């Protein structure tokens, strides 16, 4: 048999193709650690992005609100008047020489033909400013009828030179009252209409002599009556006058809301960098505590609200399965203390507070390195690191569903001020006592917050709400090589009052 190149290849292939060797044990540990850190890194990136996005939205909204002129166009002022035009008041200029009694003659209030509605050539139609702003068409889809009543007591006070008011020859500005009445379908009785209008005027307190109806033919359904809308169904011919409040799609919203909030809170942390991050995970776990506060919101529109307030929250973590080795004991003068290193920093605890069973001389021997070098002691109790914060949120709330049960999405930032911190020993019965403090902790942090709010109306002003919330610190809580970012989950609940 020859040993040629085919044979040498085949020989190695046969021998080594299925060669097996057991990988080193620690390789799985390294792989797990790497994958975990990647997962956390990804989560942290998403949280930061969400926080930055929320902050940008809040900042943008605030800028938009604070500097309205920056974003407004020349016509915006006029648009703003549209809201007012939906009320019972707005302004028109009365004809020259008759300021006190414009005479609501169906075709005499406005002489400028371009102000007439399309198709309304024969009847008077002093367009309201919203009509003009919208290019001469009414808010109503169908033809509508308008009626302008002059109030001489009101003059040019709102005439700012913009084109929201209707120009007439004299330029005299009068307040016009708009009324809504219902006409019988098809044939409207002119006199009955006049009486109805008079009655309505009386009920609104407007002098009834301000309303006159001409002897012109009955108002046609196509006539546009300023402010109020007399609409006619183009199919049935049935006319109805409806109140602006009814026709407006805008629902009344409260400018100010105040909330009282309380929630259980689960907090933990992400560890980045350093060497002990993975090891810390085996001994550190989440902490359950609570949070509560007061929150107020300013609404810019039905859907957009900026929220702030003041909250108190307890964050932290629980250390358990603590094994103290000889290296953890140190001497400071006559005192012997234990260094509890953890992801949040270092906790120095007098050994006597942790270990009652060991005689002091044994501990001293450990520290001085004379005898019990191999000493290790498993702590029976767990240690709680607690950080108390006063938090000021700046959140933007957007109402996604605006029904009896509102659904809101909230995002923004919290400014977190550390007001107190402590390390507590917690025994099996749940009793705790203070044993020390954590060193190198930042006194101030920002956190990004995202929440989903469900709000149920209990009455006109009172709402009950539920708000699952996620909060993530944007800068590390500690000042060590290992950087630790606390995060928390809470479900805030409480009542809100609208004003």
């Amino acid at each position: 048999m020859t040993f040629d190149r085919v044979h040498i290849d085949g020989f190695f292939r046969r021998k080594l193709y299925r060669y097996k060797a057991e990988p080193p044990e620690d390789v799985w540990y390294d792989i797990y650690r790497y994958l975990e850190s990647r997962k956390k890194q990804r989560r942290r990136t998403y949280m930061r992005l969400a926080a930055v996005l929320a902050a940008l939205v809040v900042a943008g909204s605030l800028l938009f609100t604070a500097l309205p002129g920056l974003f407004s166009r020349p016509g915006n002022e006029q648009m703003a008047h549209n809201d007012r035009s939906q009320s019972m008041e707005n302004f028109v200029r009365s004809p020259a020489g008759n300021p006190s009694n414009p005479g609501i003659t169906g075709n005499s209030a406005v002489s400028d033909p371009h102000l007439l509605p399309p198709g309304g050539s024969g009847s008077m139609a002093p367009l309201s400013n919203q009509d003009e702003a919208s290019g001469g068409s009414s808010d109503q889809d169908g033809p509508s009828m308008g009626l302008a009543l002059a109030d001489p007591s009101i003059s040019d006070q709102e005439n700012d030179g913009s084109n929201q008011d209707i120009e007439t020859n004299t330029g005299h500005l009068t307040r016009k009252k708009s009324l809504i009445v219902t006409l019988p379908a098809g044939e409207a009785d002119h006199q009955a209409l006049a009486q109805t209008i008079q009655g309505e005027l009386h009920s609104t307190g407007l002098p009834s002599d301000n309303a006159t109806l001409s002897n012109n033919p009955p108002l046609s359904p196509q006539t546009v009556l300023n402010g109020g809308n007399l609409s006619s169904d183009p199919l049935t011919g049935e006319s109805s006058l409806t109140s602006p409040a009814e026709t407006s799609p805008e629902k009344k919203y409260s400018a100010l809301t105040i909330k009282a909030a309380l929630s259980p809170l689960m907090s933990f942390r992400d560890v980045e960098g350093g060497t002990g991050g993975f090891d810390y995970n085996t001994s550190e776990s989440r902490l359950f505590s609570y949070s509560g506060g007061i929150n107020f919101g300013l609404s810019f529109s039905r859907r957009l609200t900026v929220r702030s307030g003041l909250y108190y929250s307890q964050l932290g973590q629980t250390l358990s399965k603590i094994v103290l080795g000889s290296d953890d004991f140190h001497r400071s003068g006559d005192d012997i203390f234990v260094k509890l290193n953890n992801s949040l920093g270092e906790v120095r605890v007098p050994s006597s507070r942790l270990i009652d069973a060991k005689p002091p001389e044994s501990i001293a021997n450990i520290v001085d390195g004379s005898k019990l070098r191999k000493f290790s002691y498993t702590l029976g109790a767990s240690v709680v690191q607690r950080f108390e914060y006063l938090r000021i949120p700046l959140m933007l709330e957007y109402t996604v569903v605006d029904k009896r049960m509102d659904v809101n999405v909230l995002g923004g930032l919290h400014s977190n001020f550390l007001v107190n911190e402590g390390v507590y020993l917690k025994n099996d019965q749940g009793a705790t006592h203070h044993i020390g403090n954590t060193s190198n902790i930042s006194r101030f942090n920002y956190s990004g917050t995202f929440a989903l709010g469900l709000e149920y109306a209990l009455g006109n002003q009172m709402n009950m709400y539920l708000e699952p919330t996620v909060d993530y610190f944007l800068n590390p809580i500690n000042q060590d090589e290992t950087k630790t970012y606390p995060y928390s989950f809470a479900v805030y609940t409480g009542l809100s009052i609208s004003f």
Partner: protein
Amino acid sequence: MYADRLYGITLRYARNEDEAKDIFQEGFIKIFEKLKQYQNKGSLEGWMRKIIVNTALERIRRENKFMLVEDEAYMEYEQYKYEHILEELGQKDLLEMIRQLSPQYRVVFNLYAIEGYSHKEISEKLNISEGTSKSNLSRARQFLKAKIEQYYPVKISQVI
């Protein structure tokens, strides 16, 4: 289940166990991260094996520049007849021999002789010419033959 075999592959491509461990770790991280992409087409072992081999190649490419020996004459082997002696060699001995090859020879030999890739595929994978691949393989064989001769100093011609 497949870890032992996959680790065996990394040992063939690596210079030493530390490097093999790194390749194995890197490869398995890719396997875990790409597991959703595996669509049950072909065997899972084959899919993982490919990832491990590619990981090994990436690493070797990163750390070693392939020598571009273009179109060097393909060397014929002297025929030896001592296969029965080779059978006595254990897997670890062979592995050790392969490890002593320079990175470029080792990779080409592994890909061609053991994994079964063609020179065309190797040239594409390593971004070298087919001639270079053949040349590297040839040199690898020469080297291995010399190693075997050192191991068994008696030539086959003398044995038979």
